[in-house]
Every structure is written in C-alpha cells, then in structure tokens.
C-alpha cells in the first residue's frame, strides 16, 4: 500500500487506528481558531483600554470649552469639535441624497447589466484610498482657492457616497416585491411607490448605513490634510470658507509632537473621537434592529 492511500480519510478499508491523531488535530484546530478570535478581541480591548486609561484623566470642562493651545496655555478641543461637526454634517448633507438616488436607480430602475456595472463602480470608488480623494479635491478646488471647510466636506462626501449607496441599495432589494406590486396595481406611479412605500419600509437599513458612514468619515484624517488642515484662525470658528480645525487632524498633529502635554491632549481627543464612533455604532445596531422588525412585520 502506498502512503497516498493510507492518508485518504474516506478509505473505509483502513482501520481507524489513525482516528486518535485525527481527533487530536480536530482539538488543536479548535484551540487555534479560538486563540485567533481571542487575539482580535484582546487587540480591541488593548487599544480601547489604553485610550480610556490615558485619556480619561485629561478630560475636564476646559478641555471641551477651550480651543487649541497657544503659547504657554493649556488648550482644549472646542474648535476641533465644532469644525468636525460642521464638516461631517455638510458631508452627510451632500452625500446622503446623492447616495440614496444612486441606490434607487440601481435597485428600482436599472436592468441587471447596468445594476451590476454601477455596483462595481461604487465598490471601486469605495476602494480608492482616502488620501487620493484628498489629492483630487486639492487639484480641482484647493489649488488657486486655498483650503476651506467646504472642500474638506466635499472630500468626505465622496468617501461617504459609495458606503451609503451600497448599504441603501442592499436594503432596497430586500423590500418584498409584492409591496411594490400592490402599490403599482392600485395605480400609484412608480416614483410615488418608491417614495411612499419602498423607502419608508427600508428606512431602518438606510439609517444604519448612514450612521456607519458618518462614524467612519468622522475619523478620517487623510482627505482633510489637503483640504482643511492649515488653520489660520484661532479659537472656535464657523466660517466654512476657511480651513477649520477637526478632531482627527488635531489628534494627528498632537501625536507627532514630542511634548508630553501634547501627547496627553492627543489621548483625550482620541477618547472623545472613539466615544463618538462607539455611540454611532450602537445607534447603527438599534436602526438595524428596527429594519429587521419593519421587514419581518410584513
């Protein structure tokens, strides 16, 4: 008998004397797989724990109400919080309607070929590195006009569109056909069916996609380096035609500083950013639960 035949596990003529070894392999694989999952969970705990531990002692009311540090002052993140809120808000205002329209076209109107083409295009756009999006906005708008919060928001919006559009399109396709058919059979035009039947049914899933995209974009630094990083105003500013401070860019610059005070502020700012991201993720889970209920309740 050759060795190849012996190792064939399906050969029932071989006595099961190798069963012990096979069982041990089975156990070993189980342990290794468990350890891999443990590594991932431990990494998350390690990073979150470090940020919490190093950041929480720096948090104070001043940290939230004061702006970035000037010479010999202790500073806060008020300006960065306001800047981030403005930019992410504007980005969502630009991206969400466009993304939902794209998703409606793919899910409701396009034929199978066109639908798959636009899906691939969205995925490819999603795969374009964030820093390239920054370079693009820099090239078409910042060169000649200077940096501004509007341009930063546009870069963030380009990042958001494929995320929201893909999430929306996937929920729209989950909305049962018979709902649309019932509406169309009553003589309701197609656009009206989409607007008052399909979208409300899918709203939970759409909101999940939007919230996750907002959380991701709020932490993006690379596209803002080219569009809104050279801040000339000091203090809290709401002038969207100027570059505004943002939380991620602030963390980035503070993290590269050798001063322990700056590093401490970086940890505290990171804690604020992570807390926001986690809250958004919990919110997304809540909306996802609503989506399940509304789609199953039919």
């Amino acid at each position, binding site marked *: 008998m050759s060795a190849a035949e012996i190792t064939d596990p399906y050969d*029932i003529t071989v006595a099961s004397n190798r069963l012990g070894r096979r*069982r041990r392999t089975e156990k070993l694989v189980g342990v290794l*797989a468990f350890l891999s999952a443990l590594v991932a969970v431990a990494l998350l705990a390690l990073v979150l724990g470090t940020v919490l531990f190093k950041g929480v002692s720096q948090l104070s009311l001043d940290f939230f109400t004061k702006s970035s540090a000037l010479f010999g002052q202790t500073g806060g993140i008020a300006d960065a919080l306001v800047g981030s809120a403005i930019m992410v808000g504007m980005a969502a205002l630009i991206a969400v309607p*466009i993304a939902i329209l*794209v998703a*409606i076209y793919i899910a409701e109107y396009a034929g199978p070929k066109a639908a798959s083409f636009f899906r691939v295009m969205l995925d490819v756009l999603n*795969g374009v590195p964030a820093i390239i999006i920054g370079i693009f906005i820099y*090239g078409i708008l910042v060169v000649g006009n200077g940096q501004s919060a509007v341009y930063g928001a546009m870069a963030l919006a380009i990042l958001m569109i494929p995320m929201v559009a893909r999430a929306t399109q996937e929920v729209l396709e989950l909305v049962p056909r018979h709902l649309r058919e019932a509406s169309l059979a009553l003589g309701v035009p197609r656009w009206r069916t989409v607007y008052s039947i399909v979208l409300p049914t899918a709203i939970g899933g759409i909101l999940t996609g939007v919230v996750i995209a907002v959380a991701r974009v709020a932490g993006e630094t690379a596209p803002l380096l080219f569009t809104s990083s050279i801040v000339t105003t000091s203090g809290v500013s709401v002038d969207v035609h100027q570059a505004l401070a943002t939380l991620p860019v602030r963390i980035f610059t503070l993290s590269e500083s050798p001063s322990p005070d700056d*590093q401490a502020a970086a940890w505290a700012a990171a804690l604020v950013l992570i807390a926001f*991201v986690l809250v958004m993720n919990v919110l997304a889970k809540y909306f996802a639960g609503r989506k399940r209920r509304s789609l199953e309740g039919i």
Partner: protein
Amino acid sequence: MSTLTPDPAAPASIERRGIRLGDLLFKGVALVAAVGVTAVLGFIAYKVFDLAWPAMQKFGLSFIWTEAWNPNTNVYGALTFIYGTLVTAFIALLLATPLSIAIALFLTELAPKRLASPIATMVELLAAIPSVVLGLWGILVFGPWVAQHLEPWLQSWFGFLPIFSGTPSQAGVLPAALVLTIMIIPITSAICRELFSRVPRDLTDGSRALGSTQWEAIRRVAIPYAAPGISAAVLLGLGRAFGEAIAVTQVIGSGNAISRSLFPPGDTLASRIASTYQGASNEIEVQSLLYLGAILLVISLVTNVAAQAIVNKFQKARRMSTG
C-alpha cells in the same frame, strides 16, 4: 379632489402622461446621480494624473525605479516608497489572512452561538477604530513595545535572517506592518465569515456523514468552496493596506532608503504623501508627491478591480450551478 378621482369624461392619456412625466423625471434624476458618481471616479483618475504630469515629464518612468528623495538637489524617486508599500502590505497579509480565516471559522463553525455573536461584534468594532487613533496608539505604546521586546526577541531567535538584523527601532517598517495587520483583520475576517456561512449545509453534512471530522469537512469542503471568495477578501485587504496613509505615517518613521532589515524606518507611497505634503519645500517636490499619488492610485485600482472581477466570476458560476 379632482386629481385623485379621475374624471371619466377626461381622456385617460392625459392622466397617464402626467404619471409618465413624474416617473421619467425621477428616473432621470436617479440616473444622473448614478452616472455622476461614475464620472467622479473617472475624473479622480484624470485629475490625479493631470496633477502629476509636470513631475512625470521631468522624471519620466525612471522615477519608479529611482531610490532618492532629496529636496536640496531636487532629485526624487518612488522606489523606496513602492518597496515600503509592498513590504508592509505583504507582511500584514501574511499575518492577517490565516488569522482572519481562523476567526471566521471559529465564529461560523466552532463557537457556541452565545459566544459567536458578541465576538463578531467586537471584531467589527476593531474596524471602527479611526486610523489616526490606532496610529496614536502605535506611535506611543505599540512602537516602544516592539522596539524593547518584540524586535530583540526576534533578533535573538532569527537574527541570522537579514530582515531581523540591525538595531531595534520604535518607528519602522515592522510596527507599521503590524498596525496594518490590525486594520485589515476585521475586513478580511468579516468577508470570510460571510463566505463560510454561505457554504451549503448539505456539502459539509455529506462530508461528515462519510466519516470525516469537523476539521476535515472544513478543510476539504468548506475552504475549497469559499476559496475564490477568500482570495477576493485578501485582495480587498491588500487594497486597504496599500492605501492607508495616516496610521502608517505615524509609526513608520519617514525613512529615505531601502533597508534589508524590517527594523529601521521606511515609508510607503501613501505615508510619504501624508507626512511630506505640508512641509514640501517647492513646487517640484509637491508634483513628485502627486506622482507618488498617481502610482498609488494605479496600484489600488488594479487590486480592487481584480477583487471585483473574482467576486463577479464566482457569483456567476454559483448562479449557473444552482440553476
């Protein structure tokens, strides 16, 4: 409410034309949005090359294999950064792929349900950590640990390998590759999890019924079934690793030369752009950075399109085989 109850005397075509107009308008707007987004993708590619054009004209293709970045003599080349991009991404993939597959198998096949769902949520949350925060942790906590513990340990066991030679360093290629590993594990493991959960139960059950152990059923049935999808997942992780700018910038330390060892600082295409753009000394340096951006765009587009092509081919084959 004359609009809601059609007047039987009125010709039906007017009513219908109104409906058609609304539909046409809505469909048109949606189509414009879809085409517009596609056009943006093309415009991005065009603009990045347009911006890099002066540097392309000045340095030509030899930019790609020139190992230099010297603002004083205005000699620039991309080789160090292409090398850094490939090496960090390759190490990250080497570590993340088996880990991701194991995590996915654990969550879909081995873990009890009560354990699987919270662990899956936590792995997803790993992806939610902003890269700048991971980079902050990398530069202040992880980098020093790598320099004091991991690199000396690697050196004492594998010091004969050139990649583990030289003095340990806080900022370098190795910590950057490890941070990238952390970033791509949630991406690849999420896709692998979905792939394994889609393996038809009959196939694995059949294998078990023929006497194979659970691991044998996974290795001989589930993994081959999911293999094309896994390769697409790996490519998507690779694309992410190529394009990550911020976290890498924070931990890799801006090296200007290629080193055989993984310990000293290096740089990737994306991290060089992110770290140097604000301090760029003159126009030709900015243009050279944009040339790096064009190279990065090509590399990540190729990776992504390849991943999409695999997914599409795979889905089509599946659809045909299931009728």
